[in-house]
């Protein structure tokens, strides 16, 4: 866990007092001992302001104003409208449905990700043979573009695709991706499959820090393999679990490519639309970036609330 935890704090390291520099004392107090550091960081800080801080403020501002696209340079009035954009968004059934879809997504994706990645990482941690091969195979979907693997999944899960050929009479009708009940779960399974390798690697790092002595102590106390998995491994990797929960939630909130491509832009009756997909449709296709920004603000507030609840539930104070 050393690398995972060590960058939590900027680490107040002992500064070499005096340090043999001949610079005037006043300048040293104003900009610190090495003002050159500020100069080195300046380009990065300017970029942070330009492509992060300013758009962030702009998004909030936009969500409270009547913002519309105008010709570049045109002077137009964009009046403050208070919560009108939020009202419009929250009374739109398509938007409500898209948030519900993220809920379904998270209910499937998060438990599946946590359980599968922890089980596979524990097995991999103790495996002797083919370790590299196995690690590579789990990680390959993560390094591949969604756009590329989406093609195979459409083929696999189509009406007479391989999955249905194997399932035979058990296959759902209509097929997975055009089925109102199955569209969102299929997307959730796709995203879980694609991202799992990353989380397996995270858990592998966390498992290195679970002390071997704890397993020995558990064994001495007569705990079996299963018991020690739940009493030693699961609590031991709790900080990683909190991180996995947070990252899967953010993934769910950011969902766009998969519903857009797998289910042709939101799928049967909006059954697989996502808030970001609606943001794209409302904001860019239909030209009302203000309501789109309002959806974005609601989304981020939702992620923050979920992250807070997850932290409380997992008791992840130490992470």
């Amino acid at each position: 866990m050393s690398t995972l935890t060590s960058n939590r704090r900027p680490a107040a390291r002992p500064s070499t007092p005096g340090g043999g520099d001949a610079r005037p004392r006043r300048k040293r107090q104003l900009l610190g001992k090495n003002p050159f550091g500020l100069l080195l960081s300046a380009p990065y800080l300017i970029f942070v302001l330009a492509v992060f801080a300013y758009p962030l403020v702009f998004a909030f501002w936009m969500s409270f104003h009547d913002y519309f696209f105008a010709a570049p340079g045109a002077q137009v009035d964009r009046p403050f409208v208070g919560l009108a954009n939020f009202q419009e968004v929250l009374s739109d059934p398509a938007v409500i449905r898209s948030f519900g879809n993220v809920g379904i997504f998270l209910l499937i994706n998060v438990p599946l990700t946590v359980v599968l990645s922890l089980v596979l990482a524990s097995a991999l941690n103790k495996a002797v043979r083919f370790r590299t091969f196995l690690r590579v195979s789990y990680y390959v979907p993560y390094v591949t573009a969604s756009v590329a693997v989406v093609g195979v999944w459409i083929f696999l899960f189509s009406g007479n695709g391989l999955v249905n050929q194997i399932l035979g009479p058990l296959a759902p009708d209509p097929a997975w991706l055009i089925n109102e009940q199955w569209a969102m779960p299929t997307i959730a399974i796709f995203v879980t499959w694609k991202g799992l390798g990353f989380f397996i690697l995270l858990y592998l790092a966390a498992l290195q820090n679970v002390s071997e002595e704890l397993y020995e102590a558990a064994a001495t106390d007569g705990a079996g393999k299963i018991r020690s998995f739940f009493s030693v491994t699961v609590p031991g990797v709790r900080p990683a679990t909190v991180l996995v929960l947070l990252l899967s939630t953010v993934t769910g909130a950011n969902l766009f490519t998969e519903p857009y491509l797998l289910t042709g832009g939101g799928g049967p009756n909006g059954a697989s639309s996502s808030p970001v997909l609606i943001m794209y449709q409302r904001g860019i296709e239909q030209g009302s970036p203000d309501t789109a920004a309002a959806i974005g603000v609601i989304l981020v507030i939702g992620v923050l609330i979920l992250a807070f609840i997850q932290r409380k539930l997992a008791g992840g104070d130490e992470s």
Partner: protein
Amino acid sequence: MSRGQNILRGVVLLVGALVFLFPFYYMVIGSLQTKPDPTIAGAFPNPANLTLDNYADINGRINLLQGLLNSGIFTGGVILCTVVFGVLVGYALAQLQWRGRGVTFALALLVQVVPFQLLMIPLYVMIARDYGLADNYLGMILPFAINSTAVIIFRQYFLQIPRELFDAARIDGAGELRILRRIALPLVRPALLTVVLLTFIGPWNEFLWPFLITKEASLQPLAVSLANYLSNVAATAANPFGAILAGACVLAGPAVLLFILFQRHFVSSNIGSGVKG
């Protein structure tokens, strides 16, 4: 460790690997088949049904070479910005004391936790509408130019270098830039490779942002043109799935190949330190 448990673990791991790899195997087979065969037999190569026509077909529709070139320029630009900013800021954060260091590090962490999608609409308004950078490589690269993961990884590496090394160079009269170029940079060469590899997969696979701001086909990265083909014109091809899978192989190829060649550089602790907010 009993024998039974060993076998069980092996079976779990192998079944897992099969589930992860099968779609890739199926992608390659499917891209080589004259006629798509969705039956179980279609999962095995049949010499009578194999062809390279699908690659020619997809190339005739979306100019693979131009798409690869655009993806390369986009990815290269992002990697360049990431490495330059990452080395400069990482070095400054780890080895120099200056006012604002704590704030800068806090900002780098904050950048990571705010979802990009909140910034999507204002960035689109700014870059595509106000600055007129739609259909422009610069417009594609800008939002990805800052990458805090790289800053944090470089900071970690620079922290491990004893400060006395740099102090000694200063006493010998070396300027800070010279120290950075001659001493610091060569010492973090392993981090450089890690950052390049980790950064590569982001822009190479990125779809949403370039999709938003490139309407002109000749400027679209491969992921965008392939996605457009997937959602618009696929129905008109003789073997649409074959063509899509051929395109998918071309898009997936470079990232998968780089990963397999350098897989030991994708160390879990680097990824962990990168995402830990």
